[in-house]
Structure formats: C-alpha cells, structure tokens
C-alpha cells in the first residue's frame, strides 16, 4: 500500500515472531485455545495493520433489555 523497504518488512516480521511466541506462551494448557503465527499480515507492524484493516468506526448501540419483545415467526 505504500513503499516499504525490505528492512522495514523484515523488522516487522521479526517483531511478529516475538509477538507470536508471547501470545502462544500465556495459556499453553488451555483447551482448544487459539494459535497465533505467521500469516499474510506478518510483514506489517501492528500500527500499520490497524491503520489498514481495522477501520470500523464506533457507534452508539442501545443497550438490549430482556423486556424488549421480539416478534418470532413460526420456523421449523
């Protein structure tokens, strides 16, 4: 998306490897826990990843109340 040197990408990749090691080390015995590792985003620094891919803007959602009754159609 923008010019990035090989050195820049290599630095991001090295940081990703360290991050994977950290993320995978915290809950090793936990059942079915997520695995983190190399994928198509490993050449990006987290701030770059966030700037490109995490662009959902916040909105104010009304709090759900169990008192709100939804009309449920007959479904099999």
């Amino acid at each position, binding site marked *: 998306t923008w010019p990035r040197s090989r050195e820049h990408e290599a630095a991001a990749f090295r940081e990703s490897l360290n*991050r994977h090691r950290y993320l995978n080390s915290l809950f090793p015995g936990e059942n079915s826990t*997520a*695995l*983190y590792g190399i*994928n198509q985003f490993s050449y990006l620094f987290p701030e770059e990843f966030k700037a490109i*891919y*995490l662009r*959902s803007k*916040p909105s104010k*959602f009304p709090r759900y109340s169990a008192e709100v009754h939804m009309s449920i159609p007959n479904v099999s």
Partner: protein
Amino acid sequence: WPLRFDWRDKHVVTQVRNQQTCGGCWAFSVVGAVESAYAIKGKPLEDLSVQQVIDCSYTNYGCNGGSTLNALNWLNKVTSLSNILLKHQNGLVPVFFWSHSGFSIKGYSAYGLQVNNQEDEMAKALLTFGPLVVIVDAVSWQDYLGGIIQHHCSSGEANHAVLITGFDKTGSTPYWIVRNSWGSSWGVDGYAHVKMGSNVCGIADSVSSIFV
C-alpha cells in the same frame, strides 16, 4: 436449541471475501448479512455489490472506514424508490443501486448486549433472523491461525466488523463461528472461532440483525 448451528450448512452464506487494503469491513459484513437474509427467505444465494455500498453509503468514509449502524441506516433509507430518486437529484446516491437489483431491507435491529448471559439472546436472534453483524476488537487477529479465541482482546475497543454465521457448543469451550473479510487463507478458511458467553473481543457489544 441445537448444540451446533451454522448457516453455512443451509447453503445461505456466500464465500469469504477479501477486502484487500480497503478499510471497508463495515460494508462487507452488512452486505454479507443481506445476502444471507435473502437466501434464508428462499431467494437464490448471490453475491451483492459491496463496492456499491462502499461508494454510496454517504454517511461513511468508503475504504477509509465506516460504521455498520450508519450503513444499516442508509440501507433502510434507500429502500423506497422515492428516496432513491430524491437522493439522486441531490447528487448523493446513484439510482442504480437497489432499484436495478431489486434488493431491499425491511428493517434492522441493533443492540449492545454487554450484560452477562445475553449471548443466549444473540444465539436466538441468529437462529431466528440469520447471520449477525457484530463489531469486535480484532487487534490480535493479525496473528490468528486457528483455535478458539479466548484472550488477547478487549470489550469496549471495537474496531472491526464481521459476520457471525453460527455457533458450536458441542465441545468444552463453546464458540461463535465468525466470517471475516480477509480472504479464505486467513484463520480457519477465512473464519474465526470466538469463545461464547463472556463477551470475548466485545462480540456482544454491537450486534445487528437484518430483516428482509
């Protein structure tokens, strides 16, 4: 209630898309929900144009970001022909969008379900109305390969819109089945599994259903 349910098994979910470097997750998730809602109603499953929503939803910022709630509001407004023409005369929305394809929505619901145990209400809405549009904290998803996401993300930090297509409670850790828009090589064939029941990644903070 079923222990496992996935709208993909009913063949009403389109293929995982790839948003590339466009920050249009908000449009990918909303359009995915409309596609499924129509297919659930018995219409053919077909890919609708995410690009048109990105281009035309004028309360959002195209590939620079947007809000699912704004997109749903916009969808709701452009469903009548008069509205479409009015907006067109104002130069805001091209008339080609819904008028040609014949797709429209009857409405939507949008709630935050932060209170404990309300994820059951989400499951009910999923089963009743179809896939759910949700916004999550996906910072740690940069490195996700598979398994059930249970840590390394927060509630109240929403930054990425995705689509819940089902859930699985058959194992010791129940999880939501979440369709992403980063291509099918990411995660589990383009999907993530997120632990149910404790608002992991804020998955219950911003939940929307679409009615067609």
